Structures are given as C-alpha cells and as structure tokens.
C-alpha cells in the first residue's frame, strides 16, 4: 500500500499544484515540495527494511488490474530500486527548487507535468509486471514532452518531437516483444501472466530470444542512450528548461539503464550473453564519441548533454560485461551521473538566466563576478571527469575492473574516455570561468541556488568516500541479476515447440 501511495502522491500532487495556481504563482511550487517531501518521508520505513537477501522484495503491493489478460498492479522495491527511487525524489525536489525563478509562466501546469513525469519514473523503477512497466514507461513521456515543448528554449518544438518519436518507436517495439514473451510463456505453461517473476524462466529458442531481446534493447537503448540511438538526446537536453534537463539526464536516462539491468539481462540471459560483445562495443564507442563531441561544442548546454552520452556509455559497457563488479559500477554510475550532470545543468541554467546565452564563445572570466558559482562548477566538473574521492570515480573504476575480466582491449579503449573527459571538463572550466573577465558582471548565485548545489555536492562526496553504504544496499539485487545472467535457458527443448506459430 505504501508503495502505491508513493506513485500516486505525485499524481494527486500534480493536479493540486495545477489547481493551486489560482491562489498565487508560488503555491504550485510549495505544493510540489510538499508532495515530494511526503514521498520522501514515506521512504523512511522502506529504508529501514531493505532486504539483504536475493529475490526478496520489500513494500510489495499487488492488486488485480486487467485480470482477463493476466496483468496485475504489482509494485515492489529492492535495493537497486530503492537507490533509484531516492535519487528520483531527490532530483525531483531539486528540479522544483532550480526552476523557482526560471519558470514564470503557467507555473501550475509546469509543476503538474513535472510531478506526473516523476510519478511515471517511480512507477518504472518499482513495477514488477511487464505491462504495468510499459504503462509507466509511456506515462512519463507525455508530460516530459510538454515540459520541453512549452517551457523549452528556441528550438523546442523540433527537440520535443524528436524526443517523443524516438522514445515512442523504441517503446512500441518493446511492447511487441513483451506481448510475444507473454504468449510464448502462455504456450509453455498455460498461465497467462505479465508477472516479472513468472516470465523469468521462460524458455526461448536462440533466434526468438535474440529478437525479443533486441525489441527490449530498442526501448532501453534509446533512453540510455546507446550510440546510434542517441541523436534525440543533445537536442532534447539542450532545448529543455533546466528542470527538464535535470530530469532527463538525471532520471529518464536511468530508466533505460534500469530496464537493461532489471529486465533485459535476467529475461534473456542467453541472448544478452551473445549480444554482450556488441553491447560493450557500442558502450565503449559511446564513451569516446560523447567525449570527443562534447569537446567540439560551442553551446555550453550541448556540451553537458554530450558528456551524458559518454558517461552512460560506461553503463552500457558495465551492464553487458555482466559480472557483479561491473553491475555495481553501473548502479553507482547511475547515481553519480544523475547528481553530477544534474548539477552541471543547473549551473548552465543559472548562467543562461544571467547572461541570456549558452554560447561558450561569449563567456569568459566569470569567476571574477561569480566566485561561488565558479567553485561549484569546478567541483562538479572534477566530479564529472572522475576525480578520486568522488562518486563518479568509484563508478567508472568499478565498471572498468569488471569489464577488464571480460575484454581487455575494450577496457583499455574505454579508459581513454577518462582522459577525454578530463580534457573537456577542464577546457569548459577554463573557457567559461577563467580568462579576461567580460564587461558584464552578473550577480553570483543566490542562497537558494547555493543550497541546491551544496545538497548535490554532499552525496557525491559521500558516495565517493564511503561507496560501501550504497553498494551494500544494491548488492543483493545485483547478485540476483548476475546470477540470472549466468543461468542457462539452454534446457530449450529444440526448435518447433515453444516458438511462435
């Protein structure tokens, strides 16, 4: 029941926030803070009861939904979901705070969309029924689309179209794969169900398994984004309002990574192993590609967007390497990338609010006028390049040790990404904050912004210095995934039985 509330409070909060606009423009903001705060408070009992053994769920909720086709409302949390839900609520709170002065028009509707997106994301992280998962997967798209389309920057219409079409196309392919899996399972066992635990053991012929896995990969690969499926990302991130970019980079990309770990690998272990080499290659290529393109950007926000492609390449690499170390690295990378990139987007947003431009060529020596912002930017820039002592270092290090065991050459190449990231991060700091100061003297960041950035800095440091706190929480889920990956669905009885007609 608790977890159902967790999903539905933002939904209700969104409606209330929209209606509250009539009372004044700050009302929707407070309503959103209150709704998210309520959700955070509700996480406390869940937090104290994290299961430490494999395959155990806490705060489980199960109810009938469409019983005629075997779909149920089944929500539950394990260690990995818990970390991601906390990240969602935290970044949700941050996005409300960072749009406090940026969003001045249609405030109610803005917060409505914000909260509904968050609700969809929480649903994705907790759904244990594949149809319900798809439902939430699609639910978060429409409000996100509106966030970009209404409150975005100059080229928002194009960007929002592209975002929507890409994600929807991937999603529909996943739906077809889900349905196919459902019918194969039904044919084998006679039970019509979309339940995650039930579908796990489905026997698939190698060809069918590969096709279905690719269907899932279409949806997750677009979101992560995997190289070649990434072209929507720079546009959407650049054109979205700050809060939208924070949610896109911090959370939406994580839903893809989460899907990879939770659904793709355990459901199709054979196909995932077979695809591993390609997946790791795409990941490694993405790391380098994102880093090189980031370096070439003139638009500050676009630069940060390309760093996302690079960082998320590590997730792809780690997920397909598939051992416990690399998978733990993935989870850590999801958290640290969400925090550090989110913070960088907030800084870019704050700069744009002051200078009305994102063009790096027109920025110089901002440290003089904004020392506090400069300090924060340096910190998050260093975090992004993976300086030891910060969360990103732990994450990328874990992924690299994990993948080293699987493929030495790819790991060596991927490590080059660390150098490239140092180049673009330092180059960005150098160009924007150092050099001769421009004539403008924009005001330094406000108290609110300081608190926002400070609150994002602390977890990065904490996770960097004491990574074990988070690793312990997710370890049981990761063990289960790694176990599933090694499991064979090789007791496949031969062609003809079990495939589709």
């Amino acid at each position, binding site marked *: 029941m608790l977890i159902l509330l967790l999903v539905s409070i933002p939904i209700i909060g969104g409606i209330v926030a929209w209606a509250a606009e009539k009372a004044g423009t700050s009302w929707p903001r407070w309503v959103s803070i209150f709704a998210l705060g309520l959700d955070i408070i509700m996480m406390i009992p869940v937090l104290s009861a994290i299961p430490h053994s494999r395959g155990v769920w806490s705060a489980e909720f199960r109810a009938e*939904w469409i019983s005629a086709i075997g779909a149920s409302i089944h929500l539950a949390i394990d260690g990995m979901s818990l970390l991601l839900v906390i990240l969602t609520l935290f970044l949700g709170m941050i996005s409300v705070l960072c749009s406090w002065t940026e969003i001045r028009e249609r405030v109610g509707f803005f917060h409505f969309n914000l909260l509904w997106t968050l609700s969809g994301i929480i649903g994705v992280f907790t759904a244990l029924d594949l149809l319900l998962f798809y439902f939430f997967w699609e639910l978060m*798209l429409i409000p996100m689309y509106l966030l970009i389309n209404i409150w975005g920057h100059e080229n928002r219409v194009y960007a929002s179209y592209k975002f929507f079409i890409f994600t929807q196309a991937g999603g529909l392919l996943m739906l077809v794969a889900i349905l196919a899996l459902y*019918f194969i399972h039904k044919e084998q066992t006679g039970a019509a169900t979309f339940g995650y635990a039930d579908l796990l053991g489905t026997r698939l012929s190698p060809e069918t398994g590969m096709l279905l896995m690719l269907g899932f990969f279409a949806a997750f690969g677009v979101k992560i984004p995997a190289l070649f499926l990434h072209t929507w990302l720079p546009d959407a991130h650049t054109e979205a309002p700050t809060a939208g970019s924070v949610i896109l980079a911090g959370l939406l990309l994580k839903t893809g990574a989460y899907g990879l770990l939770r659904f793709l690998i355990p459901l199709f272990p054979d196909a995932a192993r077979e695809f591993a080499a390609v997946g790791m290659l795409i990941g490694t290529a993405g790391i380098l590609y994102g880093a090189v393109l980031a370096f070439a950007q003139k638009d500050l926000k676009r630069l940060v967007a390309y760093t996302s492609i690079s960082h998320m390449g590590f997730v792809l690499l780690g997920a397909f390497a598939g051992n416990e170390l690399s998978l733990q690295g993935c989870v850590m990378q999801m958290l640290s990338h969400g925090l550090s990139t989110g913070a960088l987007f907030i800084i870019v947003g704050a700069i744009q609010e002051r200078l009305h431009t994102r063009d790096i060529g027109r920025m110089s020596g901002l440290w003089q006028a904004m020392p506090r912002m400069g300090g924060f930017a340096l910190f998050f820039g260093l975090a992004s390049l993976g300086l030891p002592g910060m969360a990103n270092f732990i994450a990328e290090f874990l992924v690299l040790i994990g993948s080293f065991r699987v493929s030495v050459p790819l790991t060596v190449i991927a490590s080059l990404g660390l150098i490239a990231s140092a180049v673009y991060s330092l180059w960005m700091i150098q160009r924007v904050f150092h050099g001769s100061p421009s004539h403008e003297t924009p005001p330094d960041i406000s108290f609110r912004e300081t608190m926002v950035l400070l609150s994002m800095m602390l977890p990065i440091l904490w996770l960097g210095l004491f990574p074990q706190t988070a690793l312990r929480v997710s370890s049981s889920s990761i063990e289960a995934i790694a176990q599933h990956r090694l499991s064979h669905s090789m007791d496949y009885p031969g062609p003809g039985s079990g495939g589709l007609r």
Partner: protein
Amino acid sequence: MTTTQVTALLPMIATGGFAVVVLLLISIKRMHSLTSALTIAGFGAALFLLFYIRPLLPIDVTGLIVMDGPAYIYITIILGSGLVASAIGYGYLERQDEHKEEFYLLLLLASTGASVLSAASHFASFFLGIELLSVSIYAMSAYITARPRSIEAGVKYLILSAVSSAFLLFGMALLYGETGVMGFAGIAEALRSGSASPAILAGLVMIIVSVGFKLALAPFHLWAADVYEGAPAPAVAFIASVSKAGVFAVLSRFYFASGFHSIQDVGVIFISLAVASMFVGSLLALLQENVKRLLAYSSIAHMGYLLIALLARGDGAERSGAIYIAAYAVTSLGAFGVIASLSTGRGDADRLGDFRGLAWSRPWTAAVFGAMMLSLAGLPLTAGFIGKLLVAASGVGDGLWTMVISLVISSVISLFAYLRVVMEMFRTEEASFVNGITPLDSYVLGILMLSLFMIGVYPAPLISAVDSLIALK
C-alpha cells in the same frame, strides 16, 4: 414470429418507432428542443430495452436477424453513440440557419439501420441495414445546405456509396447463384460441402470491396477525407462511431458465420487491405492542414489496425475487436464533439489554426481534445491504449507479424500528425474561436473524457462484460 422474438427486437423497434414520432412531431410543429429531447429519450428507451432483453440472448429472429452477444455489444455501442451524437448535435444545430429537426430523424433512422446490420444473419437484413444506414448518412452529410462543401460531401458519398451497394448486390447475387441460399449459415454449409468456386470467390471479393468502401479501407478510402471535411461535425461523429461499428459488426459476423475465414486467400486480401490502410492513413494524415481531414485519415489507419482483430484466431481476438470499436467510438465522438462545440454558424472549427492556443484560452476543452488525440495515438491512460494493446496482443498471439510490425511503424508515423494538433493547442498566440460552449456540450464532453480514462486505466469491468456477452452465441 413469437412474442419472445418480437421482444428481442424491441430496441430496434424503439429507435424506429421514435423516428416515426419525431417525423409526426416535425409535421405538426417545429420545435428544436422538444425534438432533440425526444430523440435522446428514444435512444435512452432503446438502451433501457436492450438491458431488459439481455436474458433472452442468444435468440434467432425469423432467420434474418440473430440477437446474440456480439450483436448486443455492437448495438449498445451504436445506441450509446447515437445518443451522444444527438446531444452534441443540439448546440451545433442551434447555431445554424437551417431547419434543425430532420437531423434527429436521420440519426434515429441511421441507428436503426446500423442495429439491424449488427444483428444481420441473412443477405436481406444485411442489405436493408446497410442501405438504411447509408441513405440516412447521405442526407446527414449534405445537411447544411448553405455550405457548398457539405453538399459536395453528400453527393460524393451518395455516388460512391451507390456504386459500392451495386457491388454488394452483385456479390450477394453471385453467392446466391452458386449456393442457392442467402443465410450466412447456409452459405457456410454450402462451402463446406464443395470447394469454393471462382464465382463464389468473385462474389466474396465484391462484398469485401463494398464493405471496404463503407469502412474506408485503402484503396477504397477516397471519399473519406472529403466527406469528413464537408459534412457537419455531429454527422461526422456519427459516421466515425456508429457507421464503423455497424459495418465492422456485420463484416465479422459474415466472415465467420459464412465460413470464409477458413479460405487462405481471403486472409491475404484482408492483410493487404489492412497494411495499405495503415500506411495510407498515417502518411496522408501528416499532410493535412484541416483537422477533420486529419481525423479522416486517422480513421483509415485505425480501421486497418482493427482488421488485425478480425483476422487473428486466438481466444481474445473477438473481444479485442469489440473493445477497439468501443474505444474508437468514445474517442471519435469526443474529438468531433469538441469540433462541433467550437463551431459556429459560419463554419466548422476544423482548421489547425482554429486550435491555436486553445490550451490557454479554454483549458478544459483543450484537455478533452488533447486526451482524444493521445487516445488516437494509443498512449496510456486513454482508451485507445487498451484498444491498441489488445489488438496488438491478438495479432502477436496469432503470429500475424506483417500486420503487427505495420501497426508499430504506422503508429509512430501517425504520432507526428496527432502531436501537431496537440502542439498547436499549446502555442501561445490567442485562440481565434471565441464562442462559448453550451452546458450540455460540456457535460457530454466531460462524460466522454471520464469514460476514456476509465477504459484506459481500469478496463477490467468492460473486458469482463464483453467476455460474458461474447460467450452468448
């Protein structure tokens, strides 16, 4: 004909009877509000009687008509849609400089025709139903005589529909000539005893052509955009819901009851029609500047998706078809209802520009219209999602991969078209339409939106109701 059999026909008798009452009332005194109230009462009475005859199912009436579960479902959809169409017609007609009352007469007659069609089990009732439906639609399309477009729509539909009726008759004649029977069951028996001769196949193809025309399947879709654009919005709402439901009902009954589903080549014909409709509909929808035309092309694509439910052979296929039709009826009534409620006496609110900034000037109306667009696109929370999910599921379950993959591609393409409309509503410029929405319209639209979300979020009651009815055969 026994009393029970007459009782089973009561819903059709009610709509027909109310048509006569409305006719008499018009000839005595023209009163728009009374006529409209009487029509709504007529539909309400028919729906109530439908509820009353539920225990009689399934029952065969005179060999022409069979009142069974599927017929019951489609008649419910038809009567409900007729009721909604007459309710949204009231405010719309109030703003026109025309005689208003005959429109309701046509609505009742067409609904009677569609009901007969959904329960037809014989060529006679098949033809009678489809003609009663079509002839009323000619007049409804051309109803606003002050608008040349409306007359054009009526004439266009009249001519093409007459040709398709000729095809239908010729096809029926061929089948009759070969088998010597006109009842669907008799044809099935004749088919079983001998192989399908070329004449039977030719007759069948002619019937498919005719039905394809009525459903606006590609390549028989050429009338759709012009009729949707020219006909008054309430009439289009009616065409998109009632006419599609009735024709699809008779198509699926004829297809299965006459045993044609067992002929491989017929399936291939339907697959090609479906795939062509999906792509023609979704691609041409992209080019439209007129929302009614856009929805016409969207309906072509949707009828293509619906054919998956017709061809799939799994347990849930028949259910998927019925629920798809129900969801589509709610959605198109809502969409055309919004257009009707925004329209003035000068013309329908059907250009894309008419919707500019609607989200800011009229948030609720825009919310309804936006929800309908998302439902057409098949996005979650809306009825369209459940419809598309079930149809895709029955397609995947039967391995109809060509159609399922076409459905995916075509859905992505048509997203552009629906998003364009949504985007237009969120543009910041002021809206150009300013007339107020009548209270009746806002109630009707509110109810439609609620049912859209009810079906979309918690479809279990609807599915179990449909399942229990389909079992009654």
